[in-house]
């Protein structure tokens, strides 16, 4: 089981992004250049090249290996080099340096339906696409019925695919790909398409592949999908491997890197006096904010979606006052307010006069936010008046969790809505 099937050693890929490159793409420009300075080629060529061309290392000394049966997620922002690795692995482009050793048959799915021809029927496209993905004719014949059943398009098998709905098209395309049955499967963003049920079906197929100790290399921006399937994550940044390890920490590492360096406000004990974001007119009455998880341990800036949290706010009142309330509001990084927790909403809140040092304890049983980063504002109210405010006092990174217990949860929007559904056909309704 601990046999390496993919070994990547010191892989580098250089692209030349010549600033003169684009305009030379055309015969006219070549001729034009030759006419303008016919003797240019006599001059030192190297010098010329250096001046016009800029090197760009899409991958820089990347090394990792993948063992049989592992499902590895490649994570990274745009331009991190994920696609370049996949392209090299699928042999579409050659590396500039380094080497890759692959053991076993590999198949790459950089896109579903590659090579589908709109004029051809579903049946014809199954054969064509199968051949393109590397299946032999015999193999396709053998798996044909299975592919058709998986794609659920039996009725339209002899219709040109240009008349298919996009859903049918994708289903057929994925069905062919899913039956490749290679030892190493290289997948890029394939799951970003199709409806949820079909996505689940595809994920099931991938898990099946894993169960048969197939190796999967998976690239996706969909972190929840990565977290759901991958046993390991490799984080790339600017063409280098910056993290290689279990999926969860890998995703965390990636999310952290999105924020740049972790600001001090991610700590668990936050000195609210130190904030310069406080409006000048307010004397610093809010002193410290402490964040804990639901069991009372320091939060550490992370929270899985739907989990609860606790907070304590320490306030030093300037003068005795009645009707004092503290609040914590959650905002998106764009500054949109998502929700607010306030002691003013508490039924039996303390309306007696308070003075000196006061501690507000807040408990949020569940914070069903969509995975992402949120900032916290802390405010103090006396009566209806805002007495103190610290903006962006702390940040919480909410990570994806299986909130609904179904393996799927939205990655968009802001909060996770509790919802129930019943599905019935019109016939069922009549019977009922």
């Amino acid at each position, binding site marked *: 089981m601990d046999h390496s099937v993919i070994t990547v050693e010191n892989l580098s890929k250089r692209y030349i992004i010549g600033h003169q490159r684009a305009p030379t793409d055309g015969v006219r420009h070549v001729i034009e250049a030759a006419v303008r300075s016919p003797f240019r080629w006599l001059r030192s060529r190297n010098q010329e090249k250096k001046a016009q061309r800029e090197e760009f290392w899409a991958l820089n000394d990347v090394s990792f290996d993948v063992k049989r049966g592992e499902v590895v997620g490649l994570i990274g922002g745009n331009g991190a080099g994920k696609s370049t690795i996949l392209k090299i692995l699928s042999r579409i482009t050659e590396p500039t340096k380094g080497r890759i050793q*692959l*053991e076993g048959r590999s198949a790459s799915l950089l896109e579903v339906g590659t090579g589908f021809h709109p*004029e051809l029927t579903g049946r014809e496209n199954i*054969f064509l696409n199968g051949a393109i993905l590397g299946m032999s004719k015999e193999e396709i014949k053998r798996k044909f019925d299975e592919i058709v059943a998986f794609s659920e398009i039996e009725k339209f098998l002899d219709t040109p695919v240009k008349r298919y709905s996009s859903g049918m098209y994708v289903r057929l395309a994925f069905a062919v790909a899913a039956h490749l049955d290679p030892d190493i499967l290289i997948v890029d963003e394939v799951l970003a398409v199709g409806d949820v049920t079909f996505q689940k079906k595809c994920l099931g197929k991938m898990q099946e592949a894993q169960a048969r100790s197939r190796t999967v290399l998976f690239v996706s921006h969909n972190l929840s999908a990565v977290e759901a399937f991958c046993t390991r994550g490799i984080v790339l940044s600017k063409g280098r491997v910056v993290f290689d390890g279990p999926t969860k920490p890998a995703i965390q590492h990636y999310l952290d890197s999105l924020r740049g360096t972790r600001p001090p406000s991610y700590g668990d004990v936050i000195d609210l006096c130190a904030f310069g974001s406080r409006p000048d007119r307010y004397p610093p009455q809010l002193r410290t904010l402490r964040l804990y998880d639901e069991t009372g341990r320091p939060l550490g800036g992370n929270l899985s979606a739907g989990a609860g949290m606790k907070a304590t706010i320490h306030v030093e009142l300037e003068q005795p006052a009645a009707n004092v309330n503290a609040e914590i509001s959650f905002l998106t990084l764009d500054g949109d307010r998502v929700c607010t927790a306030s002691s003013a909403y508490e039924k039996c809140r303390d309306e007696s006069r308070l003075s000196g040092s006061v501690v507000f304890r807040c408990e949020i049983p569940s914070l069903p936010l969509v995975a992402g980063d949120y900032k916290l504002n802390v405010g103090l109210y006396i009566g209806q008046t805002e007495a103190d405010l610290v903006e962006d006092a702390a940040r919480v990174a909410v990570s994806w969790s299986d909130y609904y217990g179904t393996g799927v949860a939205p990655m968009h929007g802001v909060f996770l809505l509790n919802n129930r559904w019943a599905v019935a056909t019109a016939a069922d309704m009549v019977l009922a």
Partner: protein
Amino acid sequence: MHQLTIEPGRAEHHYWKDLWKYRELFYFLAWRDLLVRYKQTLVGIAWAFLRPALTMMVLTVVFGKFAKLPAAGVPYPILVLCGMLPWQFFSTALAECGNSLVHNSSLVSKIYFPRLIVPASSVIVSLVDFMVSASILALVLLWYQYLPSAHIFFLPLFVGLAFAAAFGVGLWIAAFMVRYRDFRLIVPFMVQIGFYITPVAYLYREVVPEKFLLLYALNPMVGVIDGFRWCVLGGQHVLYWPAQAITVGWTVLLITTGIWYFRRVERTFADVI
């Protein structure tokens, strides 16, 4: 266990082995292009027959009747067909071959395979078209009750020559087209000019002055068409050997340099297409 090493320059090593391994994809691409060619047309493959038939009529009327070009005792339609069939094969093969990589850009940028498969399979498609069109020659020969000479058995040789010439030029164009889309405009122009400087609709030995004959024969298709006429018309048409030599020379040169250049640039296709 299947093993694969990816290294800079590695693809070069087992290029021909890979080409063999991907032969099935080659069949499938040719099969796809054949299927697609006449999809959603009313008369389908009959177009491969109709197109040369109509062209033959027009050329016969214009060159044989209006211009009254000499025919050396051969029915003019037969003479025209012997020039037009190889020319149409050559020009369509050339155009298809040149466009093939760009048309298949989604494949080129998403899947690995020896890229040589794409232009090669597109020429095959033109060859199949040519085979269908060639049946019109048989019909016309029957109509005129014209018995071709025994030279006809050499015909496949000249079809092969036309194939190789088209593939050679096509490879260059396909490779250039990936970077310089200008060729999309250059190719139809080349084909149009080529039609006049190639003995498609006339007997060049009767028309071209003796002293320019060698210059005229520098066009590789002159040898091919000369060969076609020699095969079909037999005794009355003598093979012009210098033209043959030039054509074979051209073809060998175009194919070898074409493959060389194609292989040199194909590694970058996915990046620039």
